[in-house]
């Protein structure tokens, strides 16, 4: 090691074996040193989504928190380039000034973890690739990444993509990095696609317990040309002291009946087009025959914020599962869940958030088996302290695991970054 490197590593490193590089070059220097010494390292941003995934046994930590700030925002070009660990809130505030937004609708994981907002950084959102309610219409986080810069496990600075939307120059590594939980690259800079914000939103709610009707409605909503941008179902909570019954408290709105299960769908646009869409949907969904109400913009906006904050599962002590299935399996899964579990359905019937009480850990395995049979996947997002059951956090088959191992090696041959965070051996 050169004298200069020694000096630098002392500057970056604190007593908890955590490095705090200030720029990309320093990240590269630190990683080169870690690579040389073969030291497994946990990558951390602000730690808001750190609870997702396996616990990491690592000698060192690499904090990327200092790589923060907006590099370039060109509203007319519909992109924003930021240092990787720029807080989401800062980005949202900046976009708001130009009536723009991140169309994938980021989830605020702070609520399930600690009961209050804690959005974290752009790199964290990219690392998890979990999109909010607008996903089925607007795409996931990965669909909104135009390019990135970062440091691979050997310490080499690499980049992929760019700032333009049409780009087929080389492999699309942005996609690979999305959802890789920091196991491939220490991100230093991210370019995101941004889109104009819709002027207003209204929400139609339909009160019903009828599972077949709910799935029928989801089917009709996804077939509609009214560009519906959110469709959720919130069932009545089970009468079980192990679940926090907070539905009525969370979804307290003037025009929403507090009791009973309900489906809600969001329409966006200007006033005239919203009215036009409501008219079309009244016909398509036969709303006149159903118990339905409309939440105006003042209720609609906070309603969807609460959905995307996962406030229904606020600070839960239970296990929280994130399940994605083909929507046609909805009836079967709802039958299985019955009123034994606390859950909600998002993405127009594709995404289920399911709470499994701490004492029934064994059920997690049973649900996972069912979901795999349905052609879906399951992630244990939050694990209860009492979890004593042997189960993998993520869903993967043997062949994909093998290919994933090879890809991991191509980025990070010595498994320096977040070893075991996703799968054993990766």
């Amino acid at each position: 090691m050169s004298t200069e490197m020694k000096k630098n590593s002392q500057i970056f490193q604190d007593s908890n074996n955590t490095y705090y590089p200030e720029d990309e070059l320093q990240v590269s220097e630190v990683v080169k040193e870690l690579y040389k010494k073969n030291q497994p390292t946990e990558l951390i941003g602000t730690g808001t989504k750190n609870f997702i995934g396996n616990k990491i046994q690592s000698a060192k930590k690499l904090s990327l928190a200092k790589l923060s700030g907006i590099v370039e925002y060109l509203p007319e070009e519909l992109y924003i380039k930021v240092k990787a660990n720029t807080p989401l809130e800062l980005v949202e505030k900046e976009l708001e000034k130009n009536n723009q937004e991140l169309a994938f609708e980021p989830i605020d994981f702070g609520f399930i973890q600690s009961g209050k907002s804690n959005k974290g950084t752009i790199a964290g959102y990219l690392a998890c690739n979990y999109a909010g309610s607008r996903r089925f219409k607007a795409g996931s986080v990965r669909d909104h990444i135009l390019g990135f810069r970062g440091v691979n496990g050997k310490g080499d600075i690499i980049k992929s993509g760019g700032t333009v939307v049409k780009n087929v120059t080389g492999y699309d590594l942005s996609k690979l990095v999305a959802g890789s939980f920091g196991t491939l690259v220490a991100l230093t800079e991210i370019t995101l696609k941004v889109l104009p914000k819709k002027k207003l939103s209204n929400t139609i709610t339909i009160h019903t317990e009828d599972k077949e009707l709910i799935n029928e409605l989801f089917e009709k909503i996804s077939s509609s040309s009214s560009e519906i941008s959110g469709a959720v179902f919130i069932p009545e909570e089970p009468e079980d002291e192990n679940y926090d019954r907070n539905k009525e408290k969370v979804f307290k709105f003037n025009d929403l009946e507090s009791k009973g299960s309900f489906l809600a769908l969001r329409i966006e646009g200007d006033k005239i087009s919203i009215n036009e869409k409501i008219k079309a949907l009244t016909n398509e969904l036969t709303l006149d025959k159903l118990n339905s109400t409309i939440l105006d913009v003042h209720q609609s906006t906070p309603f969807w914020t609460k959905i995307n904050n996962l406030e229904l599962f606020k600070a839960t002590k239970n296990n929280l599962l994130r399940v994605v299935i083909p929507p046609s399996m909805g009836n079967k899964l709802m039958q299985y869940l019955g009123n034994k579990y606390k859950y909600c359905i998002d993405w127009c019937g594709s995404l289920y958030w399911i709470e499994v009480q701490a004492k029934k850990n064994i059920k997690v395995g049973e649900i996972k088996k069912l979901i795999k049979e349905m052609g879906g996947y399951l992630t244990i997002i939050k694990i209860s302290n009492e979890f004593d059951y042997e189960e993998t956090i993520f869903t993967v088959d043997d062949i994909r695991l093998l290919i994933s191992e090879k890809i991991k090696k191509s980025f990070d041959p010595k498994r320096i970054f977040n070893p075991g965070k996703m799968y054993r051996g990766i």
Partner: protein
Amino acid sequence: MSELVLPKINKETISKKEYIFKNLAKIINPENVLSHADEIKPYETDALAAYTQTPLAVVMPKNTQEVSNILKFCHAEDIKVVPRGAGTGLSGGALPLNDAILLSLGKFNKIIEIDFENKCVVTQPGVTNLGITHAVQHKNFYYAPDPSSQLACSIGGNVAENSGGVHSLKYGTTTNNILGVEIVMMDGTICRIGGKTLDQEGYDLMGLICGSEGLLGVITEVTVKILKNPQVVKAALIGFPTIEEGGNAATEIISSGIVPAGMEIMDKALIEATDNFSKAGYPRDAELLLIVELDGTESEVDELLKQVRSICEKNNCSSLKLSKNEKERLSFWAGRKAAFPACGALAPDYYCMDGSIPRGKLAEALLEIKRLSEKYELPVANCFHAGDGNLHPLIMFDGSDKEELRKTEEFGAEILKTCVRLGGVITGEHGVGIEKRELMCEMFNDNDIQQQLDIKKSLDEKNLLNPGKVYPILRKCAEEGRVHVHRNEEKFPDLPRF
């Protein structure tokens, strides 16, 4: 055309070719192994017809297991393999090699399942892009990405190239519109990725495969997302007296918060050429023509068209026509879709470029291309996917004049370098293939390219699958290749190209 450098020929493969044919004929029906010179002639090139190579043999497997068995055999015997869909690619991605098997997916031509409930279609890769829309349009659904060659190009090829089209600004490219793929790795491993669910967990292998130009695996099945037709679609045809004003109007439309379903630009040369060709009724006095298409509900579309009108008037448009019905809307597009063949009628040869730039640099790019056209004394016609900054300048020249050919190549390379300088990229939708291979280092440094090569190596350690494509062989920025069309003898002259 500059001399093409291809991977070193494996003489051992050539010397054991009878053994190879015999074994391939054991793996699949011998009728589907073509090795006679006459039989393999049609496969010597794709739509980048300037380059031709004779493959060792052409194999046409019928199912995934056969693909796997072929690859397993080739892997064990160190035989190179070049996959091929419909062969409509413009960057030479399916160019055969003398010592490689050409693996045609032509027999994978069936739709496996139409699933309206899950809004998807499961299909074999040889089905055409438009074939998917045709299969679902009776229920008012369609498949969104619409590359200009959609009548002939295969969905497997679309995945390999991450094809775009006119509507990709609002609806995304192939990578945003597929749910699952089945691929066979070079060692014969069959891997299913995704399915009928949104997103997938773990490394996004589908995102990696999409746009990997046949270097990482052979696509044997694709699940695509289908969308409901929009309620209303209308278009506007707008003429401008100067390039700057038209370019600025296009930029302003986007920055005002409008997301058009499609937005196209043509310059004077193309307005005249296409109007002569297709009688589209374009404003022939205009220096620049803008076509803006909007979709949504009736009132939404009308309101947006009002805004588009006001922006264009502010930028001194000389004419503005709104489509009154579907027939008129399609007539607006007719000339645009005839742009490439129209160019072919103007000069013996043309080169088609494909770069992307930031939208705000449209006027600057057009003026720079005009300047270069004067510098090289070669006429150029421009069409742009203005909504997403994807430009297709067409340089007209006479290929029989060697000096003119050299100048054209230089001109083309300068355009692509201009794209990179303006913050853009060297290919927006045609792919790198062999065509822009040596220009990769305009965008990427050694580290960037090495990381991509490491991925390739991890999945195909012997470098047998489509070698010599995408990544520079010489690792120097040679200035070669664009789409060269001689006397309109393009491989698919009838296909609209835009």
